[in-house]
């Protein structure tokens, strides 16, 4: 089999393109702002045990409801005297873990199905019915069903959020596959006798990957918001494990007395989602061959 040579011209174009994309990203102030916030959040989340001045669940009843800015408590304390800064740091960590896990799940399921649906038309209608079926169960209803069957936990929240994101992932991969299937180099590979698996993995997947990455970047903020909602309702991460969502549940009763306990975790969620959205938008524009004319 000598079909391998056909692919090389496609692969070699990737390098200057990557540089062009990076250059465009660097020139977008909003995308860079998103990137910086994300970097800080990721470093904070990874090194939370080193950075956090207190353990996330260390209660100090004598120091309850200390407002932000007080000595020793940068962002104040909650009803049990736990340090808000440490809890937000650990909560961000949980949010990022669920966000990334669920999107990985969506990728692992959505991309193969999208490739198959776009490439083999008989499979397409089967996959369409399955995605229709998933779409028929709205996110929270699906999460409710899963929580009823399997119990509420971080893992089950990530599974529910991941399942919900599969249809969009399938759709993006499928339409990229359909588009690429018509390209000359794919046709020439097929006429050279390349097998379906070879064409899909060597020619179509590498060229579809940028659209998939954009979709994944856009899916993560949705997943983070989803985790917050589920944990807030008690269907996600269970207390005392720190999560930005459960912090808000607890803050609900004391919001009038200690508004910062209700304000700060929400701001953290918003900043995280906003940073992903800004970076995702910038990435999409940078990858768009038509350039920044949106």
């Amino acid at each position: 089999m000598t079909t391998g040579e056909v692919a090389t011209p496609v692969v070699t174009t990737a390098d200057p393109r990557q540089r062009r994309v990076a250059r465009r990203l660097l020139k977008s102030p909003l995308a860079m702002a998103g990137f910086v916030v994300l970097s800080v959040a990721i470093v904070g989340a990874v090194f939370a045990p080193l950075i956090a001045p207190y353990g996330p669940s260390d209660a100090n009843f004598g120091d309850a409801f200390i407002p932000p800015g007080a000595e020793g408590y940068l962002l104040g304390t909650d009803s049990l005297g736990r340090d808000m800064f440490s809890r937000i740091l650990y909560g961000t960590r949980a949010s990022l873990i669920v966000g990334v896990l669920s999107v990985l799940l969506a990728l692992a399921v959505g991309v193969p199905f999208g490739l198959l649906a776009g490439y083999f038309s008989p499979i397409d209608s089967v996959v369409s019915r399955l995605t229709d079926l998933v779409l028929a169960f709205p996110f929270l209803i699906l999460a409710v069903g899963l929580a009823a069957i399997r119990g509420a936990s971080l893992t089950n929240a990530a599974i529910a959020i991941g399942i919900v994101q599969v249809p969009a992932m399938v759709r993006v991969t499928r339409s990229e596959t359909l588009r690429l299937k018509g390209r000359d180099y794919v046709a020439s590979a097929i006429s050279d006798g390349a097998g379906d698996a070879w064409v899909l993995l060597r020619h179509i997947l590498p060229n579809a990957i940028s659209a998939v990455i954009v979709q994944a970047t856009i899916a993560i903020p949705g997943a983070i918001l989803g985790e917050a909602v589920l944990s807030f309702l008690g269907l996600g991460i269970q207390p005392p494990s720190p999560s930005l969502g459960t912090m808000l549940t607890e803050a609900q009763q004391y919001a009038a007395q200690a508004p910062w306990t209700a304000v700060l975790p929400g701001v953290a969620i918003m900043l995280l989602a906003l940073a992903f959205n800004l970076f995702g938008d910038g990435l999409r524009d940078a990858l768009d061959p038509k350039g920044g004319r949106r």
Partner: protein
Amino acid sequence: MAAYLLRRAGQSLLTLVLATIVVFAGVRALPGDPALALAGEERDAATLAAIRAKYGLDDSVIEQYWAYVTNTFQGDLGRSIRTGIPVRDMIVGALPVTLELSLLALVIASILGLLTGMLAAVRRGGPSEWLANGIALLGLSIPHFWLGLMAILWLSVGLGLFPASGHVPLLSDPVANLHHMVMPAVILGTGLAAVIMRQTRSSMLEALGEDYVRTARAKGLRERQVVGVHALRNSLIVVVTIVGLQLGNLISGAVVTEQIFGLPGFGKLTIDSVFQRDYPVIQAVVLITATAYIVINFAIDLLYSVIDPRIRVAGGAD
């Protein structure tokens, strides 16, 4: 046209059948004996036997499934294992609250989204475009349940403008009902408004470059008419589509919003049923939501093919 409708109806029906199978299988996937789960607290032999007989738990899986489907579509959704009230009555009681909330949110979101989207498209590059885009991006990034908490903290607790929670039935006192509903509806509507705004903007930008808009301008129509009549009509189709696509988010959003504002709707019923392990209610709620989603999306497809003839010509391909 007829062939397309028939095919879409067939697809919807198939999805509906698959959905009933998923819900049926879901209850069987519960740990332990389904009869025990359905019986709740009353676990004497007679009750269990009655449940086994009613749901045919000793029959084959196929027979059980068939019994489940026929019971459901005859309106028998079982009884709550907590209260003993027929699930159907619980749902009929809760649904109007959710419908009102969702419709109000939809109206607010459409008005907000269309206006800001049009503004952003017409005044390209100006500060209003920046502002509209910024608000839309925030709308996609803010956790709406948190926005609800902040609204309660500020508008209810702080300023005392709106009640923080509770519900008054629409028919008994429409004014008090709206007073309770405005804040939740605005909160639920904001997320959808952001999506509508983004789509309106991009479809409007596209429309403004089309020939028919150029013709409208060339024949001397004022800009207000060009944008308001010609370009906007195109954007309305976009909104109809988005409502179909976002229906799931609207339902999920309603569940959370009801929980925050203490509205006794479908969403609150759903969450309560999970914490009480009220399986007949969970089962009914999940199936009804899925059915509503499928039926409404089918209806939107019909509507869509009426509004936009291109769909019919293209045979409704994805």
